[in-house]
């Protein structure tokens, strides 16, 4: 996983992001991984592993208008298992059958992301699996998938043509202190003690710092903070 994230971090073009989506799909062990965004001007962009003939067909048939995944996720922010959506309409059932015939899979999990200035993105994995197997997969991997979705979106935003890059997310002095103490081997309880804040507060500060560093876990966050020269131990 660290390797995939490192690869994502280094992406500099949309072609590379496309290749990273394929690597991520293989890493996740699912049939497909797809990323799609709409910005405030209604411009769309996507990448991922859906077969080109399916993407073509999706556009030609105007499936965007009936796709329950889009309808259920747009402007919202909770992750959605496709099973929880309403697939009961006739047109929707035909759409689902068409998708399955094109190898999209009978299961999916989509993570909506609301970015800055009205940007909306959807990060999806889809697969052929039984309900039980899929439930085990999403339960075991939900956390990583949510993080990947956000980091993927972050990178896609960076690559948006004409965009002025946002300054790298700075850590506050408190977050730097917490990460530094973790780096020198303090436990969270010891960090809390040293900073005179509760352990719960420490957990939240570390969680925030991890996210800003684009890390999956604390070890990874410490490594990244050191690599970027944010902490010195």
């Amino acid at each position, binding site marked *: 996983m660290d390797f995939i994230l490192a690869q994502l971090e280094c992406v500099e073009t949309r072609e590379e992001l496309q290749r990273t989506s394929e690597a991520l799909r293989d890493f996740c062990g699912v049939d497909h991984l797809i990323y799609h965004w709409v910005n405030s001007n209604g411009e769309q962009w996507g990448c991922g592993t859906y077969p080109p003939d399916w993407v073509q067909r999706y556009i030609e048939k105007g499936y965007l208008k009936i796709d329950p995944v889009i309808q259920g996720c747009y*402007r*919202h922010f909770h992750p959605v298992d496709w*099973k929880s959506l309403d*697939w009961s309409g006739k047109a929707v059932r035909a759409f689902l059958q068409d998708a399955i015939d094109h190898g999209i899979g009978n299961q999916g999990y989509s993570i909506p*992301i609301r970015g800055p200035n009205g940007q909306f993105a959807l990060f999806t994995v889809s697969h052929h699996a039984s309900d039980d197997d899929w439930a085990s997969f999403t339960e075991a991997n939900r956390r990583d998938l949510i*993080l990947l979705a956000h980091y993927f979106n972050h990178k896609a935003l960076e690559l948006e043509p004409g965009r002025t890059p946002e300054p790298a997310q700075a850590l*506050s002095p408190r977050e730097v202190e917490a990460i530094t103490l973790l780096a020198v081997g303090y436990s969270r309880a010891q960090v809390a003690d040293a900073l005179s804040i*509760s352990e719960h507060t420490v957990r*939240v500060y570390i969680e925030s710092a991890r996210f800003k560093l684009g890390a999956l876990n604390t070890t990874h966050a410490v490594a990244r903070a050191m690599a970027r020269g944010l902490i010195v131990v």
Partner: protein
Amino acid sequence: MIQYLYADQLSSFPALARAMFRDRADQFATRLKWAVEVDAQGEERDEYDALNPLYVIWETSAGGHGGSMRLMPTVGRTMVNDHFSHLTDGVRIESPFIWECTRFCLARDAGPGVAAALMLAGGEVMRGFGVEHYVGVFDARMVRIYRMIGASPEIVGSQGTGADRISVGLWDFTPEAQARVAQRAGVSPELSRHWFERAFGGAGPARGDMRAA
């Protein structure tokens, strides 16, 4: 019962929505005297209501508003990061696993279980969507109410004194806390789960549809 409604779904529940925004005006403007904006219809809204937040609402058996709270992910704009970072050691709290809970409001005539039922619903959101913490802004009176229902937040920082004290706090939700809150709410965990799944789908009929297709 609990309703989970994004702002863009409120139009299907116009009376409930009106009652919620009026009760918010009553709580935050009339009773707490916070500097909030109340419109000509007597409804309180702020800029965050325009960002399509998720409302968790206790709907009374008569279809009225018993209480509510407003949830937003901290990866977008939040009240805590925009206005209260001096109470969080200057840390911008930002993670898909930390959501902000604000405008926790109880109707004047709310029954004793309403606050607990809302907290219980907050627990459903955590379990269902992988949320690990809430960060919230609340007044001194809510501190007592949260304590009473057995779901006290960890206070990170406060400003003001006495009744005017405003705090930023954190919640996580252990199974023990959940059991305690369910008891205070007088709502069984099964019923609580049912309300959540009715709103967001779950092991409902959609499963069968999916397989059949």
